[in-house]
């Protein structure tokens, strides 16, 4: 019961964070209301042009023309809602952005030819989740177990060799991606250059899955190479710190097997710390995906975002920012959930404990 209450509270807080973030985006995109003034001036200018150009208005006194211009411009303002103060309008912008109800894109279309922003974006969501999800899970599992093994062989040759590789994680995944493409696609010709499936896509599900896996291998390896050694390095340090805790020594005195000590007395107490750090890694990965997907020509959100920026397709840009906000919040919520499972201090709550 406590865990669900904790999660609901976390979800509400995270949603508020997203709302604030999107509102700030809306505010910046509208230059704090200045954009409205620009649009209003533009409308007035257009109306004035039309009024002066109208042959029927020849000989009408200037004051009368001015009144007509003002009247028509007012009408346009009301039609577009520009007569309301920016603060009121910004709330409207916020709700449309949050519901991804952004109308139609200016240039980009979905594969089915739709220009609806929501469709364009959701279509690109799955490939990104597939790519990053696979890579992130792989990095996590490999790094945790290698780090655990190294912390036992602390100071050995293997340990020092792996630790010497840790600075490789300072370069992002796409950097390794370029070399992987060069080596496996250009020189060895065993892997595709990019894309998600071969063209035309295979009809059978099995062949489709195989083709997908082949295309997934290089970008996943790129993210893996860019993240795994740094993860091993820092997590090994956490394991070393936690294995010098008194309860680990006592577990040894209790005669528990080293496997049990490792899993129950080192890994489990360390997990909350590791998860917190891993959360930050995932968030940087979301950002890195923009370049990585472009390098690998992966039809995901990141590449969509970059294309939209190049084409100045504002609805798509705003939509992508919003969906990134949701994804980050979703990631954090998921990890909060895992955190609560592994750490009773969160689950039970301070001073509580009765059920």
């Amino acid at each position: 019961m406590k865990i669900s209450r904790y999660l609901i509270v976390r979800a509400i807080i995270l949603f508020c964070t997203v709302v604030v973030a999107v509102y700030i985006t809306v505010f910046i995109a509208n230059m704090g209301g200045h954009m409205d003034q620009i649009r209003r001036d533009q409308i007035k200018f257009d109306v004035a042009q039309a009024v002066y150009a109208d042959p029927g208005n020849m000989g009408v006194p200037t004051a009368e023309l001015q009144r007509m211009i003002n009247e028509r411009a007012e009408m346009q303002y009301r039609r577009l809602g520009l007569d309301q103060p920016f603060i009121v309008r910004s709330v409207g912008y916020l709700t449309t952005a949050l519901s991804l109800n952004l109308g139609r894109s200016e240039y980009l279309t979905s594969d089915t030819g739709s220009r609806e922003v929501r469709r364009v974006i959701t279509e690109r969501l799955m490939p990104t989740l597939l790519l990053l999800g696979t890579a992130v899970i792989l990095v996590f599992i490999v790094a945790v177990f290698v780090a655990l093994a190294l912390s036992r062989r602390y100071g050995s040759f293997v340990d020092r060799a792996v630790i010497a590789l840790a600075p490789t994680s300072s370069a992002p995944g796409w950097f390794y991606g370029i070399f992987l493409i060069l080596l496996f696609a250009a020189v060895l010709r065993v892997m595709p250059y990019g894309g998600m499936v071969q063209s035309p896509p295979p009809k059978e599900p099995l062949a489709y899955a195989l083709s997908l896996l082949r295309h997934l291998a290089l970008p996943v390896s790129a993210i893996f190479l860019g993240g795994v050694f740094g993860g091993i390095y820092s997590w090994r340090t956490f394991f070393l710190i936690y294995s010098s805790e008194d309860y680990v020594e006592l577990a040894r005195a209790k005669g528990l097997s080293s496997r049990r000590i490792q899993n129950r007395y080192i890994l489990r107490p360390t997990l909350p710390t590791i998860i917190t750090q891993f959360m930050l890694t995932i968030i940087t990965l979301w950002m890195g995906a923009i370049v990585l997907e472009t390098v690998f020509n992966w039809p995901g959100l990141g590449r969509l975002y970059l294309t939209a920026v190049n084409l100045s397709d504002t609805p798509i840009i705003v939509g992508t920012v919003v969906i990134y906000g949701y994804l980050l919040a979703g990631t954090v919520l998921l990890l909060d959930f895992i955190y609560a499972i592994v750490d009773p201090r969160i689950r039970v709550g301070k001073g509580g404990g009765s059920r």
Partner: protein
Amino acid sequence: MSEQDGLLQVEDLKLHFRTRLGPVQAVDGVRFSLDRGPAMVVVGESGCGKSTLARAVLRLLPRNVHTYTGQVILNGTDVMKLGEERFRRRIRWVKMSLVAQAAMNSLNPVVKVGVQVAEPLLVHRQVGNKREALERAREAFRLVGVSTDFLERYPFELSGGMRQRVVLAMALIANPDLVFLDEPTSALDVLTQTNIMNVLKGIKRDLGMTFILITHDIATSSELADRAAVMYGGQLVELSDAGQFFTEPLHPYAERLMASVPTLREDRELDFIPGQPPSLLNPPTGCRFAERCPSRFEKCDEEPPFEDVGGGRWVKCWLHV
């Protein structure tokens, strides 16, 4: 030192650590024996090697071991000769257990205390299933005076005194022959200390378990002790019956140590020992206390033997040879 009743016999036990400055002789040639039943208290200043002695007997070694030699004979078998896996299965916790110095950190923060207390029974196959193990844990909780409701709690939900009792319950659960208590009460307030000492006295009386109590709190330890050992500079310098020791210590260091203990009724100046304990990196070749000793003479440049001076008293001092 009768042979037939002997529980533990330690011969020339050495544990040296490797450091950047050279080997540290934390335990250097310790020799004592202990019968089943009487509790022994080991006293001495901080850093004299008391805790390391317990770790050497229990084989809880850090990574930087330089030398680890000697004999630890428990119930007639030299456990130093056992391989790591056999030692783990046959000796650890079922024969010797430990209440570690920092009880606050002796419990895994993410495992329920009941499970942690019951765990050794399952690992050493003393019971068949988890339910039985928890039932035994419940009994152990009652024994040390912790409400059995706490079985289902996590360590962070318990107070310091509670945790200390839980750690004690854990040390007793597998019915070991020998329990090391490494400053079991040093982090607690006086009332809780007294409570726990009373629990220990009760257990000693009722279960006949043998305790080795390591402490620098001489006043509290006198409650429990039957035998008293004094450590100085990594060596035992005196081992006597507690009664004799507390009234009339023999070794000059032990004398000074006892003189530094405040008493309520006697109106006397508290004494202290001038100087510093010797560095264990490069200890003096003769008697290690010689530098600070008021009764030093020429012979003290040679190392005195640790010998029986009669009446079951062992002293490492040329004055008593």
